């Protein structure tokens, strides 16, 4: 591990330690936050009992669908919009202000249309994540050097081969930024939607535990989601760094 990585780890350990100490000494009331050690043991017990397996399966399943649809749809729409400059000119102001609009206001409308099924959650998740992927795709394609298009023509490549063998790898670092954002937005949107209104799922479970003053269960579930989100983001970060190293010839 690098020196910076060690410092980062030390900061996290120190913060958890401080929280543990504050909770154990009564500085923070047990009714407000339970000690991290209790969160961990409670989570272990929950996982071992299998009581949240169905919720985990449902929530993570929806998140995977949201992320996959957002990435594929965002990339495809990005390609089309990039190829149509006038459409892009018309849409650019909408993209620039998209995240200033609270997309969640449409969640009740979606529930009214589709009922309390996973569909409104998927739709709200995709609506939240897809624009990040579109913007990243446009940004990536903008940065593909023009000379590569000429190289493609010199090699007499058709449009699809040019896109797959030159434009896609040349734009990959920017596309990966879109992937990372889509993953983050996917997690946030799905958990938040479940939290607001849903018959099941980890978000719903957290909301129920909160209403029941069941702090042990609520913090265990929060810890579980934190661990999952951290693992996913760490994997993405490691992949990003590896690819960047490869492109930079090991000299990032």
């Amino acid at each position, binding site marked *: 591990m690098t020196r910076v990585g060690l410092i980062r780890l030390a900061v996290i350990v120190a913060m958890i330690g401080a929280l543990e100490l504050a909770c154990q000494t009564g500085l923070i009331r047990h009714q407000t936050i339970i000690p991290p050690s209790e969160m961990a043991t409670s989570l272990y017990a929950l996982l071992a009992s299998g009581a949240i397996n169905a919720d985990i399966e449902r929530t993570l399943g929806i998140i995977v669908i949201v992320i996959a649809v957002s990435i594929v749809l965002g990339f495809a729409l990005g390609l089309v919009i990039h190829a149509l400059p006038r459409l892009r000119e018309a849409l650019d102001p909408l993209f620039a202000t998209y995240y200033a609009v609270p997309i969640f206001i449409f969640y009740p409308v979606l529930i009214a249309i589709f009922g309390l099924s996973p569909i409104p959650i998927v739709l709200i998740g995709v609506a939240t994540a897809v624009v990040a992927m579109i913007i990243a795709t446009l940004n990536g394609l903008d940065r593909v050097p023009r*000379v*590569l298009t000429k190289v493609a023509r010199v090699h*007499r490549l058709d449009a699809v081969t040019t896109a797959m063998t030159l434009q896609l790898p040349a734009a990959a670092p920017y596309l990966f930024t879109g992937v990372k954002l889509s993953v983050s937005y996917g997690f946030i949107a799905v958990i938040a939607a479940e939290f607001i209104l849903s018959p099941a799922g980890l978000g719903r479970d957290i909301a129920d535990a909160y209403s029941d003053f069941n702090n042990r269960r609520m913090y265990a579930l929060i810890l579980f989601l934190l661990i999952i989100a951290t693992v996913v983001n760490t994997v993405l970060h490691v992949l990003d760094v590896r690819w960047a190293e490869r492109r930079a010839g090991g000299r990032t």
Partner: protein
Amino acid sequence: MNAVPRDIHAQLSAVTRVFPGAGNQPPVDALGPIDLDLRKAEFFAVVGPSGCGKSTFLEVLAGLQRPTAGTVTFEGKPVSGEVAEGIGVVFQEDASFPWLTVWDNAAFGLRRSGVAEAEIRRRVDDALAFMGLKGFARAYPSQLSGGMRQRVCISRTLVLQPRLILLDEPFGALDAQTRLLMGDEVLRLWRSTGATVLLITHALDEAAMLADRVGAMSARPGRFIEIIDTGWPRERDSKIVAEPAFGEITGRLWDRLRGESLKALGHAGMTTTAAG
């Protein structure tokens, strides 16, 4: 179509290129009219003031741009808007692919041409050895200097065994010493492949050192105002810069181009005044 003499490899007849004006601006006459016969296996260099249409000329000859008027032929067949088989182009910009190793960069075109794997290996290994990149086959472009990256791009062109190699200021971004050495390598490549080479450059000394013939181009719209035979033997290298004839050729080129360069600058000045 008229019969093309056997030693004519590519031919441009009354070629012009006009770019449509942006918005309310008038169209821009970028090139021509140009008439040129490129002879088989000759090394032809084009020099001219900035913005005179040298690169446009190369792209029209390559088939990357359609001429507005006139005809372009390569090996007797018309070229228009598509790059013909047998033409290779090396650009001024770094066109190496940073996500591929040097070896895979060189093999890129062959892999998309349906060439057998063994033949790809043979040609790529040969090209990398020829360009002095054998020890860097597994390296990525970012680990190489600008000159080496340009050699990677030349290797990628070379493996396709082009019969006409078009070089668009390939050493423009390199320092003077590296350019001299790269010039030697291009001469070696030209002799060993037997290809016809057309080099676009802004450097008079580079053109005078490398080419059999040098075409001096006017300010925009670019036309050939003189084509000079250098008279160099086929076996030559950068040492000819010490020859008295080298000074004479560059001097003559500068005589022809000084006025054109001033015209180009004056034109830029007028544009600035009008705009500002």
